């Protein structure tokens, strides 16, 4: 609000396109994340805000950029992430990683130059870049940009209630989960999944190697899920009414399911999986005659099948708590163009 007030009251501030972009991105995000029914005017306003932010961003990125510019890029990435086409998100996240590197966010060497508050903000911005980078990488099966060996930023800790960004509190208001840390761990698994199964090398694996990779990642995913306190597990969330803080946890769990289904080869747009299923189902088809009684039906079930079944039940139950008007969450739940992912 201070920034908005300054923008309208001080002409000097209006020279700063970063501020203008930030105001517009925050307005667009607030509209997008508002679960109340949107009017056409809301839509037009959000559209205008996005255009304004992009135009201002063009101006600011031509000069030396600042942390605020990076935050604007991240805000735009989040907006596009929930839309039908995630491609702009991919480009924006790549841009954000480069900007983070320019600002030296990936190293703590320069942290001493900043006051505690700014250092904390830089730290958080870096980790959001890190999470988005790996999330979009797995969803589009494109390489991610930030390598673990080329960074030394400390993992986010929950030190005080004054710096509770990234912390989600339970219904009792006392218990909490370090959501950001939890999400970072999942991001690492997403990156490992990409590396082991969908990178250029990963796609060259033979059946047995691919199965071994699947087992290894599934085990890591299982450990990750078990590390989440019971209160924040999907089964418990499904049993409660939807609260604003819970939507972040729902996002977290849907990202986990997405990763698990990919790793297990039971993703709805994996054509090999669908082919095995449909061929197996032929025997139960009305028009299927016994022309080939000796035909062998190969089981379509992958190893550890019931893990996938259990996860599917959880996933569909968790969907009950999603507010259908929460387009930011609904749009996030699923990869945007997986209708046409490589098979």
């Amino acid at each position, binding site marked *: 609000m201070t920034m908005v007030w300054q923008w309208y009251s001080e*002409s000097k501030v*209006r*020279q700063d*396109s970063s501020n*203008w972009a930030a105001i517009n991105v925050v307005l667009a995000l607030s509209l997008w994340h508002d679960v109340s029914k949107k009017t*056409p005017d809301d*839509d037009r*306003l*959000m*559209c*205008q*805000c*996005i*255009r*304004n932010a*992009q*135009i201002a961003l063009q*101006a600011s990125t031509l000069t030396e950029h600042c942390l605020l510019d990076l935050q604007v890029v991240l805000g735009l990435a989040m907006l*596009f992430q929930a839309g*039908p*086409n995630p*491609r*702009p998100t991919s*480009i924006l996240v790549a841009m954000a990683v480069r900007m983070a590197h320019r600002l030296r966010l990936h190293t703590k060497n320069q942290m001493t130059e900043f006051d505690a508050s700014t250092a904390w903000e830089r730290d958080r911005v870096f980790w959001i870049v890190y999470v988005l980078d790996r999330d979009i990488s797995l969803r589009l099966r494109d390489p991610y940009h930030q390598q673990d060996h080329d960074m030394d930023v400390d993992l986010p800790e929950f030190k005080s209630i004054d710096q509770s960004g990234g912390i989600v509190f339970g219904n009792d208001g006392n218990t909490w989960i370090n959501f950001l840390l939890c999400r970072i761990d999942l991001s690492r698994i997403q990156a490992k999944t990409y590396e082991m199964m969908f990178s250029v090398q990963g796609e060259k694996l033979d059946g047995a190697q691919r199965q071994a990779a699947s087992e290894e990642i599934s085990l890591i995913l299982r450990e990750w899920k078990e590390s989440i306190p019971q209160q924040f597990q999907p089964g418990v969330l499904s049993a409660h009414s939807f609260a604003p803080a819970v939507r972040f946890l729902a996002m977290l769990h849907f990202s986990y399911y*997405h990763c698990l*289904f990919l790793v297990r080869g*039971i*993703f*709805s747009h994996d*054509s090999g999986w*669908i*082919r095995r*299923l*449909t061929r*197996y189902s032929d025997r*139960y*088809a*009305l028009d299927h005659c016994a022309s080939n009684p000796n035909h062998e039906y190969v*089981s*379509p*079930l992958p190893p550890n*099948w019931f893990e*996938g079944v259990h*996860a*599917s*039940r959880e*996933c*569909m139950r968790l*969907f009950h708590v999603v507010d*259908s008007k929460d*387009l930011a969450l*609904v*749009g996030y739940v*699923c*990869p945007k*163009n997986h*209708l*046409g992912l*490589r*098979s």
Partner: protein
Amino acid sequence: MSGTFAQRTTSACEVDANVDRNMSCTYMSAMIVLIANKLTTSEHEFSNQVEEDDLLIDEGLDFVDHIARVLDDDRLLRLCAGCHELNARATNAVMSSRFGGTWKSKATLRPWPTLEDYYTTTFKPAVMAEEENGLSEGFVRWPSSVARLDDIGLVELTRMTNDGPLPKYLGLVP
């Protein structure tokens, strides 16, 4: 001017449905896994959650049907039909497992626009067409309301002045 958010201004319902369709991926994966579990019931111990699974599957099918109808998207309609058929076959598999023999219910089965066909005949030509036209993957799979940065970026850049009138794009109220 194209772009998702611009399109929402003219047809919020259509774009909301687009977003819903997007969501169908993880959700639909879960639904197909539960259908597959029914279909392969003879291969594993009979689940005592079969009734709950049926409820979840029915909800999922209704959800995907709804999106397909709102969008009037042929590919999605075919996918829905494929899921319905797979579920009908899975129901037959459960009945066969319970009562023996090969159960086939005429009432539940529809013409079979196979899921497999859906992938081989619908997507691959689309992918090939994209590649031939030099378009990025995913481009032709979505309606023209797909957001693209370059579309939105075409808006005229208005120069800001130090003390002059506020730039055009300052207008927050459309």
